[in-house]
């Protein structure tokens, strides 16, 4: 079934067209979904939601054959829908609850509490000490990215490497920092 014919069939909700969509693009759907969901049943649920959303978008005339192939459009729609649904799920997981009977202040202080601040300082100290044990380049990369707020392009230009290499080395530096931190945690636990 040719793409435009498929899209027309999907608009008309022809069973053959829907079946073709599900069969032909199954690997594409699950490639996207698998990046966001590890649980098998959750993946199936997400698949259903994404397919229904795709049909809605087709009905709304979102697909334009002149801009690209149906598969490319479908991948984009699926990926974006997965991101949106994941964001919704994550926001649901952290509800802001107020205990019954507590007085709700007119303007709640959104900043961290004293306990949080103490913990933040402690972890900040650990990160600073850990960074001191890294290679110079790793220190530079992490500082440029997280302290100076530089973009990957800017960091690459400063060090004289490509953006892809910058991404890779930044990832490597973060892993090295974690390795140092894990050792520090182990030492702390041993001392206690």
């Amino acid at each position: 079934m040719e793409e435009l014919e498929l899209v027309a069939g999907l608009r008309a909700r022809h069973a053959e067209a829907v079946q073709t969509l599900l069969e032909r693009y199954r690997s594409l759907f699950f490639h996207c979904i698998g990046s966001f969901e590890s649980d098998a049943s959750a993946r199936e649920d997400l698949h259903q939601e994404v397919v229904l959303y795709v049909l809605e978008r087709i009905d709304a005339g979102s697909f334009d054959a002149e801009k690209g192939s149906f598969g490319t459009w479908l991948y984009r729609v699926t990926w974006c829908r997965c991101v949106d649904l994941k964001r919704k799920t994550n926001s649901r997981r952290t509800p802001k609850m107020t205990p019954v009977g507590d007085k709700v202040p007119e303007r709640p202080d959104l900043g961290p509490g004293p306990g949080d601040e103490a913990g933040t300082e402690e972890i900040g100290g650990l990160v600073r000490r850990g960074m001191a044990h890294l290679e110079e380049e790793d220190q530079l990369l992490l500082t440029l990215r997280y302290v100076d707020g530089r973009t990957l392009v800017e960091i690459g230009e400063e060090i004289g490497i490509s953006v892809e290499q910058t991404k890779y080395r930044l990832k490597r530096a973060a892993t090295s920092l974690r390795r140092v931190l894990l050792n520090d945690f182990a030492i702390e636990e041993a001392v206690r």
Partner: protein
Amino acid sequence: MNEELREIPDRQHPLPPATPDLEAAMKNTSNGPRFSPADLQNDPKAAHDALLHWDVQSEQILRLLAQHPEHGGRLEKLQRADGWLRQRAADTIVSRTQDGDNGPGSASPTAPDAGLACPTAGELYDFASGPGSEPLPRDRHLAIDRHLAACESCDSFVATLAIAPPALLLLGDDEVGVSVPAVTTGTMPEPTPVRHVSGHRFPARRVLIPLAAAAAIVLAIGVWRAFQPVTTMRAVWPEAPLLRGETADALVWPRGRVLERSEAVARLAPALASAILFELEAPMFELEAPMFERAAPMFELEAPMFERAAPAGSESSRVQVLRTAGGAFDVPTTIAEWSPTSSTSASPIPLPAGHYTWKAWTRERGLDVELGSRDFEVVHDAALLRELSAILESGDEDADVRAVAFLDARGFRTDARVLARSLPASPGRDAYLGRAPGR
């Protein structure tokens, strides 16, 4: 913190010096290793690696790590450390925005927390250059780039696009050219049924390239073998596979398949004309002194003492041959029974093609002790005889050895031994005959 404590044995240098960038930045696989839940429970190193790459682990693995009494605390601290770094990036974004420095390409002043607002999924898709993405304006691209440093969730969303999507299930070239239905007419044409994929629809080059590669390999092997020196074709005595443990018992030969004694076999190899020989294991300690005399100079042994296994109680032995139809539940029929006087004895009756079982007993101190039982099959194999004939009548010097190797390789090891025994003594022949099957 004490510096000595830092030097714990499992402490590794974060990175080997001067490591080259050999790997591509974008790969088709996840950057972190994959683990199973069992690995995390049983393998501390796997758990350590999972913690190092916690940001690419599945929710199931993260849940297991979080629930672990030891790793849970470490995971939380690592996540907080990551959050602390990202918070620094977020603070920088806010302070830059307040200062009016939105970086190169920024057009207009924005709200202080504008850089912290998550981009839409579509923008993230374009930023990560997903399939069919459209280029973002430079200032937006840079803003998203900065945002990713501060936002772990958006960063992880973008990371999922590093893996290329799979190829689609295409159904064939002849589908191109199907008339496009006119959607605006209001009457929707019936779509054609789903087409089944058939074998001949593969593009020709997907078949021809592997075929050409296979043909080239076969040709190369043929040429290589053709130019091999003749010496490599020299017949060699068969060797036994290395077995661990012991599967032998006292009933040595016949076993497996045995050629039926016939006139054709007798004409082909007179050695095989004799009746099938039944061999029981020789006493273990009945060794020849010269073997040890050869070893004496090396180990400085003096007048070694050899003892024959005490045969005092062994008064006689008995062999019984039973014929079966070859099935697992057949009732065997005894067709011959005799008392051999040595470890090797010939069958008193000819054994036509069929399935047989032979058993042996020894009488010790007035009691019959069963030595075991073994199956063998007498077969008439005309094709094998033709091949054997071709080898023996080739006129080559080593035709006999090749015939032995041929019979051994085809599973007629009983006959191979009989044939080998008829050949002149040589180290290879003696080694072959001295081999105990199953040992």
